[in-house]
């Protein structure tokens, strides 16, 4: 038989029967101050629950086992419900109720539906959404779980509801010295608050250590090692709330990020760059009385038990170019090690963080593109995690900016939970119109929010060439400027003697270059003739030799014709007086070479026709050969001299 305190009995109970522990009277007085709010709430609830019929009678919870995990600064409550339909028709939703004070701190709620028994058990996640049914007291917030198929009469369904609360552990005392341990308060209800009647329920609260200052003692309460067990309680009516307060020691690092800005920049050349700007604060009991470094370093067991020195971040595998810096500069106290499943980054801020202290820093890393960017149905999909890679961090305000390459169109986002979204533009390297940025914002983030979200967009592969095109056009402008500079005539006076002299010298230079060109053509013809002679000695084909001779003759005639006007100009120009004799010499020598070569050629052809031996031929052309080589040498030397002028 249940002799639990009903709602009416609670008021005197709460104010007098709280067990007094070894804390000073100050603590008791403080708790008396706090308690008056609880009976107010409780009385209101009781009155409203009598007056209105919000208790639902179609469903009954046959069993609920609650496990509250208080080991971290994030409170996780796992309630296993067995809901039975005792009404007339099928029911498609189950309502969950939370007091408003708790619902404000609710970060995420997840319902898992367990079907089947034993080996064939499957679990799937059910949509849970906030609803506002009619006729409910305003102090409660309701969430509705939609069942996949309606629950028939007299059927039972098993649900696992995981709720995560932030800021539910209140440090008490609110300020501690460096040598104190951190004690926190947690308030909840021993009875499961539900719009349905509950047949059997138990509650287990897991604490981080065995040190418990005080906890509300109801009948059927026991403290077993570091777990407080309430229950089992039977046949509790709907909307019953019996408050409990647990005052215990929790030295888990209370890492709270007031603001985190994550910038994810995609480059189609093979890199996803993530930059995270953190602004952290220690969310636990504030520190008073100064900080003693000696105590902290030499007596670590009794100093700074609730402070933290290190933060561990779990980055995706194959992360590279990791940096950790703040406004002062690089922070070198960090370690990275990685394997094929993750890259673990352990960072140490510049100072240990005590209660109320703040620090801010930036972490950046690059990821390979093929791990996160995919192509599906003509669109590109970026699949990346939403939350922060650090362990056990509560984020007050998270802003995720996804910077897509310039030229991305038709951008859409699909996230597993509601967020505020808008678009911006960012100007970066080699940008003309700027890169589109999708910004997602959400408040009250816990590690359970670290799920994947997708950004879809269209991008034409040819747009990738825009960047090298810009560089190429830039360099081309340089060359055009050079050409324009060389072609324009920027002298101020166009009739001065020096300017005219320069003009004439340019002309002479041009003519000399042309002469040089022609001479090199001559020499090429000579080479060809020599080659034909060698061919003759190899193959004995006299006809082709004769044909080559004919062609050479023709070419030489043409070249001589071209040379004539140039030589005439050079002769007449006064500027060329220095260079003219040299040019004359070259031309004369070249003429000599021509004659000698023609002689040699005819001699060799004759000999071949007469079928004379090799040595005879050599004897006859020996002298000519000598002269030819000497002349060749001289011509080359002269050309060099002319070049240098």
């Amino acid at each position, binding site marked *: 038989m249940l002799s639990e305190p009903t709602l009416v009995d609670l008021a005197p109970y709460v104010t007098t029967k709280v067990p007094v522990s070894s804390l000073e009277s100050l603590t008791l007085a403080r708790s008396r101050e706090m308690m008056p709010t609880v009976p107010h709430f409780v009385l209101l609830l009781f009155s409203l629950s009598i007056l209105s019929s919000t208790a639902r009678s179609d469903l009954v919870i046959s069993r609920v086992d609650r496990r509250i995990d208080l080991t971290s600064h994030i409170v996780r409550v796992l309630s296993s419900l067995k809901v039975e339909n005792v009404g007339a028709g099928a029911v498609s939703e189950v309502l969950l109720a939370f007091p408003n004070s708790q619902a404000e701190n609710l970060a995420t709620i997840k319902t898992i539906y367990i079907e089947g028994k034993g080996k064939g058990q499957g679990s799937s996640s059910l949509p849970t959404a906030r609803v506002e049914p009619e006729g409910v007291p305003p102090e409660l917030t309701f969430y509705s779980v939609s069942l996949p198929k309606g629950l028939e009469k007299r059927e039972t369904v098993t649900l696992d509801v995981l709720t995560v609360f932030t800021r539910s552990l209140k440090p008490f005392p609110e300020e501690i010295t460096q040598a104190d341990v951190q004690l926190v308060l947690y308030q909840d209800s021993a009875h499961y608050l539900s719009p349905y009647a509950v047949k059997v329920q138990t509650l287990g609260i897991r604490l981080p250590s065995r040190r418990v200052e005080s906890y509300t003692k109801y009948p059927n309460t026991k403290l077993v090692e570091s777990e407080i067990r309430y229950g089992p309680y039977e046949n509790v009516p709907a909307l019953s709330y019996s408050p409990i307060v647990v005052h215990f020691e929790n030295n888990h690092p209370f890492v709270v990020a007031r603001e985190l800005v994550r910038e994810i920049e995609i480059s189609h*050349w093979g890199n996803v760059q993530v930059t995270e700007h953190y602004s952290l604060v220690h969310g636990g009991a504030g520190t008073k009385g100064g900080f003693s470094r000696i105590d902290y370093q030499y007596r670590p067991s009794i100093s700074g038990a609730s402070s933290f020195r290190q933060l561990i971040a779990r980055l995706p595998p194959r992360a590279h170019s990791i940096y950790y810096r703040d406004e002062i500069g690089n922070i070198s106290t960090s370690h990275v090690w990685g394997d094929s499943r993750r890259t673990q980054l352990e960072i140490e801020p510049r100072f240990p963080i005590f209660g109320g202290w703040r620090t801010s820093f930036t972490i950046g890393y690059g990821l390979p593109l093929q791990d996160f960017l*995919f192509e599906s149905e003509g669109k590109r*999909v970026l699949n990346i995690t939403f939350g922060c890679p650090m362990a056990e961090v509560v984020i007050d305000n998270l802003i995720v900016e996804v910077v897509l390459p310039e030229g991305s169109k038709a951008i859409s986002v699909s996230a597993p939970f509601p967020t505020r979204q808008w678009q911006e533009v960012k100007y970066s390297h080699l940008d003309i119109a700027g890169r589109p940025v999708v910004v997602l914002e959400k408040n009250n983030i816990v590690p359970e929010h670290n799920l994947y979200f997708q950004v879809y967009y269209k991008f034409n592969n040819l747009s990738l060439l825009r960047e090298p095109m810009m560089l190429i056009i830039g360099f*081309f402008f340089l060359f055009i400027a050079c050409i324009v500079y060389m*072609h324009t005539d920027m002298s101020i006076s166009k009739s001065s003697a020096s300017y005219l002299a320069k003009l004439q010298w340019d*002309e002479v230079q041009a003519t000399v*270059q042309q002469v040089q060109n022609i001479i090199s053509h001559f020499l090429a013809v000579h080479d060809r003739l020599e080659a034909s002679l060698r061919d003759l000695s190899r193959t004995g084909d006299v006809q082709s030799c004769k044909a080559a001779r004919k062609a050479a003759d023709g070419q030489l005639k043409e070249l001589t014709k071209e040379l004539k006007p140039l030589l005439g100009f050079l002769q007449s120009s006064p500027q060329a007086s220095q260079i003219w004799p040299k040019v004359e010499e070259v031309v004369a020598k070249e003429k000599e070479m021509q004659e000698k070569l023609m002689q040699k050629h005819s001699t060799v052809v004759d000999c071949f026709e007469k079928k004379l031996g090799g040595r005879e031929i050599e004897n006859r052309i020996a002298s000519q050969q000598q002269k030819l080589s000497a002349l060749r040498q001289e011509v080359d030397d002269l050309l060099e001299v002319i070049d240098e002028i």
Partner: protein
Amino acid sequence: MASKPISSPVPVAWYPSLAVLMLSIGLVVTASFFIYEATSSRRNRSLSKEIITGAVASVFLGFGSLFLLLATGVYV
């Protein structure tokens, strides 16, 4: 849903080698451009030859500098 991963059109491991190769070719062509400018006289210069040399040099220099930026980690 068949989603295949997208990666860079040029393998990332090639970036430094490509940068050096393209930049050296580009610089050689630039050198030949400037030599032509310096040695040819006003009358003999041919505009088409200059422009073509300049264009080829700027293509190689453009790609070379792009791969240089990518190889040093500035993923543009």
